């Protein structure tokens, strides 16, 4: 179970909260403005009032301890930068995702220690461009993977002593056994990059590799369960 702290309640974070898979993530929402807290409560989201400027408060909610991911969603770029710096000082390994308003803030946030920057305007611009250039694919993904349809992308790690070890990627045949499509493999020993199955020469799986699969959530769950089960054989 990943622990996620979301700072700042607004349209972006509301959307993020409603999309995050609650089964795999433990979400906590914080804000320093009482009116935002009220709005959150109106939408059935349990938000807590917290002063992000004090390290004491950050530590008290588990940053530097058990929180894995921090999402900075404040409307104000300077607040996001401040939060990122404080959090990075408390925890070197924390994954920090920040939303920005103005494009100049991107460099500052990266310097402050954010791992990933999301610029809503840039993404929106990109998206409209995609709609113009590749309407079929964009529509497809908007309606399925990004939309509310039950088709998801998932990362599944190959555990130690799993039956998957030593098997060639082509032998998996996930599409006939599980109704899943194997899109790519992340080989943790080499890099953090994902390699598409299509571009790779067939390779053997090792423990620690991460399989990236696409499919309905029921099939993903079934596959995840079977992977953990040592005695299962495909």
């Amino acid at each position, binding site marked *: 179970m990943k622990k996620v702290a979301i700072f700042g309640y607004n349209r972006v974070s509301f959307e993020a909260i409603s*999309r995050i898979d609650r089964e795999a993530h433990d979400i906590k929402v914080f804000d320093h403005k009482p009116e935002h807290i009220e709005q959150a409560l109106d939408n059935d989201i349990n938000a807590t009032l917290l002063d992000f400027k004090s390290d004491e408060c950050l530590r008290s909610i588990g940053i530097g301890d058990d929180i894995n991911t921090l999402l900075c969603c404040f409307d104000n770029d300077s607040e996001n930068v401040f939060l990122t710096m404080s959090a990075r000082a408390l925890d070197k390994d924390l994954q920090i995702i920040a939303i920005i308003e103005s494009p100049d803030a991107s460099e500052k946030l990266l310097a402050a220690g954010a791992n990933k920057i999301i610029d809503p305007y840039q993404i929106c611009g990109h998206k409209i461009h995609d709609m113009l250039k590749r309407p079929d694919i964009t529509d497809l993904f908007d309606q399925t993977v990004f939309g509310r349809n039950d088709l998801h992308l998932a990362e599944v790690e190959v555990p130690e002593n799993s039956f998957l070890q030593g098997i060639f990627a082509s032998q998996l045949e996930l599409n006939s056994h599980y109704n899943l499509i194997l899109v790519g493999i992340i080989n943790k020993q080499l890099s953090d990059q994902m390699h*598409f199955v299509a571009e790779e020469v067939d390779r053997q799986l090792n423990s620690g590799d991460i399989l990236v699969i696409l499919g309905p959530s029921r099939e993903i769950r079934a596959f995840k369960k079977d992977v953990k089960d040592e005695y299962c054989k495909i």
Partner: protein
Amino acid sequence: MLSRIIVYLAYFLKSSKRYKNSKLFFWNLLENQDSKLKSYFDFLMISLIFLSIYFLFYDTGQQFSVMGGYVEICIISIFIIEYLLRLWIYSNTHEIIIKDYEKALYLNIKFNLTKTLIKSILNKAEYIFTPYAIIDLLAILPSYRPLRILRIFLIFRIFKLFRYSNSIRLYSDILVTKRFELLTLLIFTGFFLLIASVSVYIFEFPENDSDIHNLFEAFYWAIVTAAAVGYGDITPHTLGGRIVAMILIFVSVGIVAFFTSILISAFNEKMPELRENKITSDLERYRNFIIICGFGRVGQEIASHLAKDKQKFIIIDKNEHNISLARKLKYLAIQNDATRNDVLLSAGINQGASTILCITGDDVVNVYITLTSRHLSKDIHIISRVNRHENLSKMYQAGANNVILPFEVAGLLAAEFLGQPVAFEAILGVLQNRSDIGMETILVTEKSPLDTQKIEQLDLLQRKLTLLGVISANALHLKHKNKYRVKQQHFYFNPEQHFILRQGDMLVILGRKYSIDHFRNEIEKQRLRAKT
């Protein structure tokens, strides 16, 4: 009897389609500013005028040339035909006749033919006395031998150029818009010159060695001095004359400055319009361009992508700062309100624009632009931006084809990054065409070798391609499971091996771009071979 025949003829012309069409054609050719024909015709006429001027001077310099004579006859006949055509399309005489006739019928009085004819002739005369028509006539008349004295008017052929060149026309337009200021200045200058010339005449004329022999010479001197030209052929010799000269020079500096400033301000006022004219005439040459309404952050992002793709687009924004930014980046931009019909029309919504993007920061404005565009054009593709979720349905109601919510998309991305950061980044890279792995669609066309093939026959594994699914509207496939609704079609995720492809299906394929291209080429080759 005669009046009956004429009225009959008028009705006949009114009902004749051919007459109407030919009149429309000549109107397009001669008068319609927006027609392509007119620009060709104008170009032709400009070259003819230059040709005729060339022969004119060739004639005056050398002996009479036979060739020049024929060319002159040709050109003159074209000028005459043009003149008559313009006279013809200026008004509809038959309509005047019919109107009068029906009026007489209604009032139950006798139809008076002469009166009506006089009326229509006066109507045509109205055209004859317009400045352009006079110039046209003067360009023709001197060629008639008995009127050779009018040779000087051949210079009017050059004035005829006014007709065919927009830039010259614009200059005269500017003068017309500032006519009040110019007239005031002209009257003042006239008075002043008169005073100066009379006084210099009074001072200089009685002197023995005077250069000024009459009032005309005094006037000529005043103008030459006032315009700061000062040839020096006539100079004042008396003290009085020199004082007049000094005053004249000082005042004329003011007059020239005033005149220049009037012209400059008129040009400045006309400049935005000029620029817009240039943009719209540029746009007419393009097909399938995109109109971007709103050049904020989102608009800038899209414009930079489109510019990279060499896709033509035009930006409309009210904000001066945004427009100057767009111009700095050398994008076509109009500073105006995109909610107005005429602005969208002049941006070419009905002429070659394929898509309109309503992406200002304000939902109300976006809805309004969407509504306006849909009203103006039934077929245009509209992509709109909405900031608040509750406005989504309004936007679809207003007629948008696609709606995008920037903050929702950002939230969604944040959520996906939390879940599977690496995979998501990779897929996003593919979707945005950043890596050499591509996701593309292959259409099963008519007579394609893919038609009626099973998935297992495609041999995709061998080609190192991953089939994600098939998009199809074909009802034959509905029995298959794993279907997802995508607009009017279904997406069949991970189709079984025995899934049979039909014409119109689209394969969604993930793989290296060149292997997808290779696959597509092979299919195309097979299709062509099957045809022959």
